[in-house]
Protein backbone atom coordinates (compact mmCIF):
# COMPACT_ATOMS: atom_id res chain seq x y z
CA UNK A 1 0.00 0.00 0.00
CA UNK A 2 1.61 3.24 -1.06
CA UNK A 3 0.71 6.86 -1.40
CA UNK A 4 0.52 10.03 0.61
CA UNK A 5 -0.66 9.67 4.18
CA UNK A 6 -3.81 11.47 5.18
CA UNK A 7 -3.56 12.43 8.86
CA UNK A 8 -6.38 11.67 11.28
CA UNK A 9 -7.48 14.24 13.84
CA UNK A 10 -5.84 12.56 16.82
CA UNK A 11 -2.57 12.06 14.96
CA UNK A 12 -2.65 15.74 14.04
CA UNK A 13 -3.20 16.82 17.64
CA UNK A 14 -0.41 14.55 18.89
CA UNK A 15 1.94 15.77 16.16
CA UNK A 16 1.26 19.38 17.17
CA UNK A 17 1.15 18.99 20.91
CA UNK A 18 2.81 21.73 22.96
CA UNK A 19 3.35 21.32 26.70
CA UNK A 20 5.39 23.59 28.93
CA UNK A 21 6.51 23.31 32.54
CA UNK A 22 8.91 24.91 34.98
CA UNK A 23 11.06 22.79 37.26
CA UNK A 24 10.31 23.18 41.00
CA UNK A 25 13.31 25.43 41.68
CA UNK A 26 12.39 27.84 38.91
CA UNK A 27 15.79 27.74 37.25
CA UNK A 28 14.90 25.42 34.40
CA UNK A 29 11.96 25.47 31.99
CA UNK A 30 11.04 22.75 29.60
CA UNK A 31 8.75 22.28 26.66
CA UNK A 32 7.55 19.23 24.80
CA UNK A 33 6.63 19.70 21.16
CA UNK A 34 4.95 17.07 19.04
CA UNK A 35 5.54 13.47 20.02
CA UNK A 36 9.07 13.49 21.31
CA UNK A 37 10.86 16.79 21.02
CA UNK A 38 11.92 18.26 24.36
CA UNK A 39 13.77 21.53 24.88
CA UNK A 40 15.09 22.90 28.14
CA UNK A 41 16.12 26.46 28.84
CA UNK A 42 17.73 28.03 31.87
CA UNK A 43 16.59 31.20 33.58
CA UNK A 44 18.83 34.09 32.66
CA UNK A 45 22.18 34.02 34.39
CA UNK A 46 21.45 30.83 36.36
CA UNK A 47 23.27 28.15 34.38
CA UNK A 48 26.81 29.10 35.46
CA UNK A 49 25.88 28.76 39.15
CA UNK A 50 24.20 25.33 38.98
CA UNK A 51 25.87 22.01 39.76
CA UNK A 52 25.15 18.58 38.33
CA UNK A 53 23.39 17.13 41.39
CA UNK A 54 20.96 20.03 41.54
CA UNK A 55 20.26 19.93 37.83
CA UNK A 56 19.67 16.14 38.00
CA UNK A 57 16.92 16.63 40.59
CA UNK A 58 15.42 19.57 38.75
CA UNK A 59 15.32 17.72 35.44
CA UNK A 60 13.68 14.72 37.14
CA UNK A 61 10.98 17.04 38.50
CA UNK A 62 10.61 18.63 35.08
CA UNK A 63 10.18 15.23 33.48
CA UNK A 64 7.34 14.41 35.87
CA UNK A 65 5.61 17.73 35.15
CA UNK A 66 6.01 17.54 31.39
CA UNK A 67 4.69 13.99 31.36
CA UNK A 68 1.64 15.00 33.44
CA UNK A 69 1.03 17.88 31.03
CA UNK A 70 1.44 15.54 28.10
CA UNK A 71 -1.16 13.13 29.43
CA UNK A 72 -3.61 15.96 30.05
CA UNK A 73 -3.16 17.16 26.46
CA UNK A 74 -3.46 13.55 25.27
CA UNK A 75 -6.83 13.02 26.98
CA UNK A 76 -8.10 16.33 25.61
CA UNK A 77 -7.09 15.25 22.10
CA UNK A 78 -8.70 11.81 22.51
CA UNK A 79 -11.89 13.44 23.80
CA UNK A 80 -11.95 15.72 20.79
CA UNK A 81 -11.32 12.88 18.35
CA UNK A 82 -13.98 10.62 19.88
CA UNK A 83 -16.49 13.44 20.34
CA UNK A 84 -17.01 12.56 23.99
CA UNK A 85 -15.23 13.50 27.20
CA UNK A 86 -12.63 10.94 28.25
CA UNK A 87 -10.19 11.70 31.04
CA UNK A 88 -8.68 8.38 31.93
CA UNK A 89 -8.47 4.70 31.33
CA UNK A 90 -11.28 2.31 32.17
CA UNK A 91 -10.51 -0.46 34.67
CA UNK A 92 -9.01 -3.60 33.17
CA UNK A 93 -11.43 -6.01 31.52
CA UNK A 94 -10.12 -9.55 31.35
CA UNK A 95 -6.74 -11.11 32.10
CA UNK A 96 -4.85 -9.53 29.20
CA UNK A 97 -5.74 -6.04 30.39
CA UNK A 98 -4.64 -6.95 33.90
CA UNK A 99 -1.34 -8.39 32.66
CA UNK A 100 -0.75 -5.41 30.43
CA UNK A 101 -1.35 -2.78 33.11
CA UNK A 102 0.80 -4.62 35.59
CA UNK A 103 3.68 -5.06 33.14
CA UNK A 104 3.37 -1.50 31.91
CA UNK A 105 3.97 -0.18 35.40
CA UNK A 106 7.28 -2.00 35.41
CA UNK A 107 8.64 -0.68 32.12
CA UNK A 108 11.99 1.04 32.57
CA UNK A 109 12.64 3.38 29.70
CA UNK A 110 16.02 4.94 29.14
CA UNK A 111 17.56 7.57 26.92
CA UNK A 112 20.98 9.11 26.73
CA UNK A 113 22.64 11.88 24.81
CA UNK A 114 24.86 10.90 21.88
CA UNK A 115 27.98 11.39 23.95
CA UNK A 116 26.52 9.75 27.06
CA UNK A 117 26.94 12.81 29.27
CA UNK A 118 23.23 13.00 30.09
CA UNK A 119 21.15 9.94 30.89
CA UNK A 120 17.46 9.87 31.82
CA UNK A 121 15.63 6.84 33.12
CA UNK A 122 11.99 6.42 34.15
CA UNK A 123 10.18 3.46 35.68
CA UNK A 124 6.43 3.16 34.96
CA UNK A 125 6.51 6.81 33.80
CA UNK A 126 6.52 7.68 37.52
CA UNK A 127 9.99 7.37 39.00
CA UNK A 128 12.44 9.63 37.17
CA UNK A 129 16.20 9.47 37.50
CA UNK A 130 18.60 11.77 35.72
CA UNK A 131 22.37 11.24 35.68
CA UNK A 132 24.80 13.85 34.44
CA UNK A 133 28.49 13.07 34.05
CA UNK A 134 30.33 15.24 36.64
CA UNK A 135 31.84 18.37 35.13
CA UNK A 136 29.39 18.46 32.22
CA UNK A 137 27.83 21.77 33.20
CA UNK A 138 31.19 23.49 33.17
CA UNK A 139 32.43 21.67 30.09
CA UNK A 140 29.43 22.56 27.93
CA UNK A 141 27.89 25.90 27.20
CA UNK A 142 24.24 26.31 28.11
CA UNK A 143 23.02 25.65 24.56
CA UNK A 144 25.34 22.64 24.16
CA UNK A 145 24.06 21.16 27.39
CA UNK A 146 20.43 21.78 26.33
CA UNK A 147 21.05 19.81 23.14
CA UNK A 148 22.30 16.85 25.19
CA UNK A 149 19.22 16.94 27.42
CA UNK A 150 17.08 17.06 24.28
CA UNK A 151 18.82 14.02 22.80
CA UNK A 152 18.42 12.06 26.01
CA UNK A 153 14.76 12.99 26.39
CA UNK A 154 13.87 12.13 22.79
CA UNK A 155 15.63 8.80 23.07
CA UNK A 156 13.80 8.05 26.32
CA UNK A 157 10.38 8.87 24.88
CA UNK A 158 11.05 6.69 21.85
CA UNK A 159 12.28 3.87 24.06
CA UNK A 160 9.14 4.08 26.19
CA UNK A 161 6.86 3.96 23.14
CA UNK A 162 8.85 1.10 21.61
CA UNK A 163 8.57 -0.93 24.82
CA UNK A 164 4.85 -0.21 25.09
CA UNK A 165 4.35 -1.33 21.51
CA UNK A 166 6.38 -4.48 22.09
CA UNK A 167 4.50 -5.23 25.32
CA UNK A 168 1.14 -4.78 23.60
CA UNK A 169 2.22 -7.11 20.79
CA UNK A 170 3.31 -9.71 23.31
CA UNK A 171 0.21 -9.58 25.46
CA UNK A 172 -2.50 -8.76 22.93
CA UNK A 173 -0.67 -10.55 20.17
CA UNK A 174 -1.25 -10.78 16.43
CA UNK A 175 -3.42 -13.82 17.11
CA UNK A 176 -5.77 -11.63 19.21
Amino acid at each position, binding site marked *: *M*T*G*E*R*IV*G*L*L*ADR*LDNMHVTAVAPGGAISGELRGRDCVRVTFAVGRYQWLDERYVEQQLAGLGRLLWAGRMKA*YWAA*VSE*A*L*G*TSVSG*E*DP*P*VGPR*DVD*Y*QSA*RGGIVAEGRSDDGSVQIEVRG*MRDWTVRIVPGSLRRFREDEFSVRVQQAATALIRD*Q*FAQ*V*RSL*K*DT*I*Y*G*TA*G
Partner: protein
Amino acid sequence: MSFDNLMQHAYEIQQQATLKALTESGARPAAPAGEPQLAPRHGEQETRQRVEQMFGDIPELFQAFAEMPDPAAFSSRISVVDQALKQLSSGWISEDPVTRASYRANHDLDEMLDAESHIESWTGRAAMEFKSNFISPFPSIVYNQFMGIAVLRAALDAEREIWVRARDDIDKIAHDTITALDRMDDCGKNEWVMTFTVVSSVAAVAGVALAPVSFGLSLGLTAVGASSQVAAAGVPDDPPAVRFQGETAPAVVDSMRDAIRLLHGYIAEQEQKIADALTNCCQAVAQQRDSFVAKRPALADATQSDVTGPLFMGYST
Protein backbone atom coordinates in the same frame (compact mmCIF):
# COMPACT_ATOMS: atom_id res chain seq x y z
CA MET B 1 -20.88 16.83 7.04
CA SER B 2 -17.98 14.46 6.92
CA PHE B 3 -20.14 11.67 5.47
CA ASP B 4 -19.29 13.01 2.00
CA ASN B 5 -15.69 11.95 2.66
CA LEU B 6 -16.66 8.46 3.73
CA MET B 7 -14.80 6.60 1.01
CA GLN B 8 -11.76 8.79 1.55
CA HIS B 9 -11.84 7.79 5.23
CA ALA B 10 -12.19 4.14 4.20
CA TYR B 11 -8.99 4.32 2.16
CA GLU B 12 -7.27 6.18 4.97
CA ILE B 13 -8.19 3.39 7.37
CA GLN B 14 -6.92 0.77 4.96
CA GLN B 15 -3.68 2.67 4.46
CA GLN B 16 -3.04 3.30 8.16
CA ALA B 17 -3.91 -0.25 9.20
CA THR B 18 -1.60 -1.63 6.53
CA LEU B 19 1.32 0.59 7.57
CA LYS B 20 0.87 -0.34 11.22
CA ALA B 21 0.58 -4.05 10.51
CA LEU B 22 3.64 -3.97 8.27
CA THR B 23 5.65 -2.20 10.98
CA GLU B 24 4.46 -4.75 13.50
CA SER B 25 5.71 -7.56 11.25
CA GLY B 26 9.01 -5.84 10.54
CA ALA B 27 8.23 -5.33 6.87
CA ARG B 28 8.53 -2.02 5.02
CA PRO B 29 5.78 -0.61 2.81
CA ALA B 30 6.44 -0.64 -0.93
CA ALA B 31 7.93 2.57 -2.32
CA PRO B 32 5.44 5.04 -3.87
CA ALA B 33 4.67 4.59 -7.57
CA GLY B 34 7.33 6.10 -9.80
CA GLU B 35 10.10 5.67 -7.25
CA PRO B 36 12.59 2.80 -7.36
CA GLN B 37 11.50 -0.17 -5.27
CA LEU B 38 13.47 -1.11 -2.15
CA ALA B 39 15.66 -4.18 -2.45
CA PRO B 40 13.44 -6.88 -0.99
CA ARG B 41 14.28 -8.52 2.29
CA HIS B 42 13.56 -12.15 2.91
CA GLY B 43 9.82 -12.79 3.29
CA GLU B 44 8.95 -9.12 2.96
CA GLN B 45 6.90 -9.46 -0.20
CA GLU B 46 4.87 -12.32 1.30
CA THR B 47 4.24 -10.25 4.42
CA ARG B 48 3.10 -7.29 2.33
CA GLN B 49 0.68 -9.51 0.42
CA ARG B 50 -0.63 -11.10 3.60
CA VAL B 51 -1.22 -7.70 5.21
CA GLU B 52 -2.88 -6.31 2.10
CA GLN B 53 -5.23 -9.29 2.05
CA MET B 54 -6.06 -8.73 5.71
CA PHE B 55 -7.40 -5.27 4.95
CA GLY B 56 -8.48 -5.67 1.34
CA ASP B 57 -12.19 -5.67 2.19
CA ILE B 58 -12.26 -2.31 3.95
CA PRO B 59 -13.31 -0.04 1.06
CA GLU B 60 -16.17 -2.32 0.03
CA LEU B 61 -17.46 -2.48 3.61
CA PHE B 62 -17.92 1.26 3.50
CA GLN B 63 -19.09 1.39 -0.12
CA ALA B 64 -22.50 -0.01 0.81
CA PHE B 65 -23.01 2.89 3.19
CA ALA B 66 -21.73 5.47 0.71
CA GLU B 67 -24.60 4.29 -1.51
CA MET B 68 -27.36 4.57 1.11
CA PRO B 69 -30.42 6.57 0.06
CA ASP B 70 -29.85 10.30 0.30
CA PRO B 71 -32.16 11.80 2.94
CA ALA B 72 -32.49 14.94 0.81
CA ALA B 73 -34.11 12.86 -1.93
CA PHE B 74 -37.11 12.31 0.33
CA SER B 75 -37.96 16.00 0.49
CA SER B 76 -39.76 16.25 -2.83
CA ARG B 77 -41.85 13.17 -2.13
CA ILE B 78 -42.75 14.38 1.32
CA SER B 79 -43.70 17.72 -0.16
CA VAL B 80 -46.08 16.08 -2.64
CA VAL B 81 -47.75 14.16 0.19
CA ASP B 82 -47.91 17.33 2.21
CA GLN B 83 -49.80 19.04 -0.62
CA ALA B 84 -52.30 16.20 -0.57
CA LEU B 85 -52.79 16.70 3.17
CA LYS B 86 -53.51 20.37 2.63
CA GLN B 87 -56.13 19.45 0.04
CA LEU B 88 -57.76 17.01 2.42
CA SER B 89 -57.84 19.23 5.46
CA SER B 90 -61.48 19.82 6.38
CA GLY B 91 -63.54 21.50 9.10
CA TRP B 92 -61.67 24.47 10.47
CA ILE B 93 -58.31 22.91 11.12
CA SER B 94 -57.01 19.38 10.72
CA GLU B 95 -54.32 18.05 12.94
CA ASP B 96 -51.71 15.52 11.79
CA PRO B 97 -52.12 12.50 14.10
CA VAL B 98 -48.38 11.90 14.29
CA THR B 99 -46.73 15.29 14.41
CA ARG B 100 -49.72 17.29 15.66
CA ALA B 101 -48.96 19.80 12.93
CA SER B 102 -51.97 21.88 11.96
CA TYR B 103 -53.32 22.13 8.46
CA ARG B 104 -55.70 24.96 7.65
CA ALA B 105 -58.93 23.75 6.17
CA ASN B 106 -59.40 23.49 2.44
CA HIS B 107 -62.75 25.23 2.16
CA ASP B 108 -63.33 23.79 -1.31
CA LEU B 109 -64.39 20.67 0.56
CA ASP B 110 -67.29 22.60 2.10
CA GLU B 111 -68.92 22.76 -1.30
CA MET B 112 -70.04 19.18 -0.82
CA LEU B 113 -72.37 20.42 1.91
CA ASP B 114 -73.82 22.90 -0.55
CA ALA B 115 -74.35 20.15 -3.09
CA GLU B 116 -76.79 18.54 -0.67
CA SER B 117 -79.19 21.45 -0.81
CA HIS B 118 -79.09 21.48 -4.61
CA ILE B 119 -80.31 17.91 -4.99
CA GLU B 120 -82.64 17.77 -2.01
CA SER B 121 -85.67 18.31 -4.18
CA TRP B 122 -84.83 15.92 -6.95
CA THR B 123 -86.82 12.67 -6.96
CA GLY B 124 -84.68 10.30 -9.01
CA ARG B 125 -83.18 7.24 -7.33
CA ALA B 126 -79.62 8.14 -8.19
CA ALA B 127 -80.09 11.55 -6.64
CA MET B 128 -81.27 10.02 -3.35
CA GLU B 129 -78.53 7.47 -3.36
CA PHE B 130 -76.01 10.15 -4.13
CA LYS B 131 -76.92 11.80 -0.88
CA SER B 132 -76.74 8.66 1.24
CA ASN B 133 -73.76 7.03 -0.47
CA PHE B 134 -71.72 10.04 -1.31
CA ILE B 135 -72.66 13.28 0.40
CA SER B 136 -73.36 11.92 3.86
CA PRO B 137 -70.20 9.87 4.26
CA PHE B 138 -68.07 12.54 2.59
CA PRO B 139 -66.72 14.19 5.77
CA SER B 140 -65.74 10.80 7.23
CA ILE B 141 -64.14 9.71 4.00
CA VAL B 142 -62.15 12.93 3.73
CA TYR B 143 -61.12 12.54 7.36
CA ASN B 144 -60.00 8.95 6.79
CA GLN B 145 -58.10 9.84 3.63
CA PHE B 146 -56.39 12.63 5.54
CA MET B 147 -55.40 10.18 8.26
CA GLY B 148 -54.25 7.56 5.78
CA ILE B 149 -52.05 10.03 3.93
CA ALA B 150 -50.73 11.46 7.19
CA VAL B 151 -49.67 7.94 8.13
CA LEU B 152 -47.90 7.59 4.76
CA ARG B 153 -46.19 10.89 5.25
CA ALA B 154 -45.03 9.88 8.71
CA ALA B 155 -43.63 6.65 7.26
CA LEU B 156 -41.63 8.69 4.73
CA ASP B 157 -40.35 10.89 7.55
CA ALA B 158 -39.36 7.77 9.48
CA GLU B 159 -37.52 6.33 6.48
CA ARG B 160 -35.62 9.55 5.94
CA GLU B 161 -34.69 9.66 9.62
CA ILE B 162 -33.12 6.21 9.33
CA TRP B 163 -30.80 7.41 6.58
CA VAL B 164 -29.93 10.66 8.37
CA ARG B 165 -28.87 8.74 11.46
CA ALA B 166 -27.21 5.90 9.57
CA ARG B 167 -24.97 8.47 7.89
CA ASP B 168 -24.00 9.90 11.26
CA ASP B 169 -23.31 6.41 12.63
CA ILE B 170 -21.13 5.15 9.77
CA ASP B 171 -19.24 8.43 9.79
CA LYS B 172 -18.56 7.99 13.49
CA ILE B 173 -17.43 4.40 12.97
CA ALA B 174 -14.93 5.63 10.38
CA HIS B 175 -13.62 8.41 12.62
CA ASP B 176 -13.43 6.17 15.69
CA THR B 177 -11.45 3.61 13.70
CA ILE B 178 -8.98 6.24 12.49
CA THR B 179 -8.63 7.52 16.05
CA ALA B 180 -8.10 3.98 17.32
CA LEU B 181 -5.37 3.37 14.76
CA ASP B 182 -3.71 6.66 15.76
CA ARG B 183 -3.97 5.74 19.40
CA MET B 184 -3.05 2.09 19.53
CA ASP B 185 0.69 2.67 19.96
CA ASP B 186 0.20 4.93 22.95
CA CYS B 187 0.57 3.58 26.46
CA GLY B 188 -3.10 3.58 27.45
CA LYS B 189 -5.68 0.91 26.75
CA ASN B 190 -7.07 1.56 23.29
CA GLU B 191 -10.80 1.47 23.84
CA TRP B 192 -13.78 3.44 22.64
CA VAL B 193 -17.58 3.39 22.77
CA MET B 194 -19.89 3.51 19.74
CA THR B 195 -23.45 4.70 20.14
CA PHE B 196 -25.81 3.55 17.41
CA THR B 197 -28.21 6.48 17.03
CA VAL B 198 -30.06 4.78 14.14
CA VAL B 199 -31.79 2.57 16.73
CA SER B 200 -33.85 5.57 17.85
CA SER B 201 -34.94 6.57 14.32
CA VAL B 202 -38.46 5.14 14.16
CA ALA B 203 -41.03 5.71 16.89
CA ALA B 204 -44.33 3.91 17.19
CA VAL B 205 -47.45 6.05 17.36
CA ALA B 206 -50.55 5.03 19.26
CA GLY B 207 -53.10 3.64 16.78
CA VAL B 208 -54.65 6.27 14.53
CA ALA B 209 -58.42 6.01 14.84
CA LEU B 210 -60.60 6.36 11.77
CA ALA B 211 -64.13 7.69 11.38
CA PRO B 212 -66.61 4.87 10.87
CA VAL B 213 -68.51 5.04 7.58
CA SER B 214 -70.64 1.91 7.47
CA PHE B 215 -71.90 0.07 10.54
CA GLY B 216 -69.41 -2.03 12.41
CA LEU B 217 -66.14 -1.36 14.15
CA SER B 218 -63.59 0.58 12.24
CA LEU B 219 -60.01 -0.60 12.44
CA GLY B 220 -57.42 2.02 13.27
CA LEU B 221 -54.16 2.49 11.39
CA THR B 222 -50.77 1.51 12.81
CA ALA B 223 -48.48 4.46 12.40
CA VAL B 224 -44.76 5.01 12.82
CA GLY B 225 -42.94 8.28 12.51
CA ALA B 226 -39.51 9.84 12.74
CA SER B 227 -38.82 9.89 16.46
CA SER B 228 -37.71 13.52 16.25
CA GLN B 229 -41.17 14.44 14.92
CA VAL B 230 -43.61 12.21 16.75
CA ALA B 231 -45.40 14.53 19.12
CA ALA B 232 -46.31 11.94 21.71
CA ALA B 233 -43.15 9.85 21.47
CA GLY B 234 -41.95 10.57 24.96
CA VAL B 235 -38.29 10.21 25.88
CA PRO B 236 -36.73 7.55 23.64
CA ASP B 237 -34.63 4.76 25.18
CA ASP B 238 -30.90 5.41 25.13
CA PRO B 239 -29.49 3.99 21.92
CA PRO B 240 -27.19 1.01 22.53
CA ALA B 241 -23.61 1.88 23.41
CA VAL B 242 -21.10 -0.81 22.47
CA ARG B 243 -17.55 -0.89 23.80
CA PHE B 244 -14.66 -1.72 21.48
CA GLN B 245 -10.97 -2.30 22.10
CA GLY B 246 -8.01 -2.97 19.83
CA GLU B 247 -4.29 -2.92 20.64
CA THR B 248 -3.07 -4.07 17.24
CA ALA B 249 -4.07 -3.01 13.73
CA PRO B 250 -5.94 -6.27 12.97
CA ALA B 251 -7.78 -5.97 16.31
CA VAL B 252 -8.82 -2.38 15.60
CA VAL B 253 -10.06 -3.34 12.13
CA ASP B 254 -11.94 -6.34 13.55
CA SER B 255 -13.72 -3.96 15.94
CA MET B 256 -14.59 -1.81 12.96
CA ARG B 257 -16.02 -4.84 11.15
CA ASP B 258 -18.10 -5.72 14.22
CA ALA B 259 -19.45 -2.18 14.41
CA ILE B 260 -20.37 -2.21 10.72
CA ARG B 261 -22.12 -5.56 11.09
CA LEU B 262 -24.11 -4.23 14.03
CA LEU B 263 -25.05 -1.12 12.09
CA HIS B 264 -26.39 -3.20 9.19
CA GLY B 265 -28.54 -5.14 11.63
CA TYR B 266 -29.89 -2.07 13.38
CA ILE B 267 -30.77 -0.40 10.08
CA ALA B 268 -32.66 -3.51 8.99
CA GLU B 269 -34.57 -3.58 12.30
CA GLN B 270 -35.69 0.01 11.90
CA GLU B 271 -36.78 -0.55 8.30
CA GLN B 272 -38.74 -3.59 9.42
CA LYS B 273 -40.67 -1.44 11.88
CA ILE B 274 -41.85 0.76 9.00
CA ALA B 275 -42.58 -2.25 6.79
CA ASP B 276 -44.65 -3.93 9.51
CA ALA B 277 -46.67 -0.79 10.21
CA LEU B 278 -47.38 -0.16 6.54
CA THR B 279 -48.32 -3.81 5.97
CA ASN B 280 -50.87 -3.50 8.77
CA CYS B 281 -52.15 -0.27 7.25
CA CYS B 282 -52.55 -1.87 3.84
CA GLN B 283 -54.57 -4.66 5.38
CA ALA B 284 -56.69 -2.26 7.41
CA VAL B 285 -57.40 -0.10 4.37
CA ALA B 286 -58.21 -3.13 2.20
CA GLN B 287 -60.64 -4.44 4.81
CA GLN B 288 -62.57 -1.20 5.05
CA ARG B 289 -62.31 0.23 1.61
CA ASP B 290 -65.67 1.93 2.01
CA SER B 291 -64.18 4.10 4.70
CA PHE B 292 -61.73 5.56 2.23
CA VAL B 293 -63.51 5.55 -1.09
CA ALA B 294 -67.22 6.13 -1.64
CA LYS B 295 -69.03 3.83 -4.03
CA ARG B 296 -69.08 5.14 -7.53
CA PRO B 297 -72.16 7.35 -7.81
CA ALA B 298 -74.76 6.09 -10.26
CA LEU B 299 -75.05 9.67 -11.50
CA ALA B 300 -71.66 9.20 -13.11
CA ASP B 301 -73.29 6.95 -15.71
CA ALA B 302 -76.07 9.39 -16.63
CA THR B 303 -76.17 10.83 -20.13
CA GLN B 304 -77.83 14.00 -21.40
CA SER B 305 -80.89 12.08 -22.48
CA ASP B 306 -81.57 10.06 -19.34
CA VAL B 307 -80.26 12.28 -16.58
CA THR B 308 -83.74 13.54 -15.74
CA GLY B 309 -85.18 10.06 -15.76
CA PRO B 310 -86.32 8.22 -12.61
CA LEU B 311 -83.09 6.23 -12.36
CA PHE B 312 -80.97 9.31 -12.15
CA MET B 313 -81.98 12.80 -11.06
CA GLY B 314 -85.76 12.52 -11.69
CA TYR B 315 -87.55 15.82 -11.53
CA SER B 316 -87.44 18.65 -9.09
CA THR B 317 -90.37 19.14 -6.75
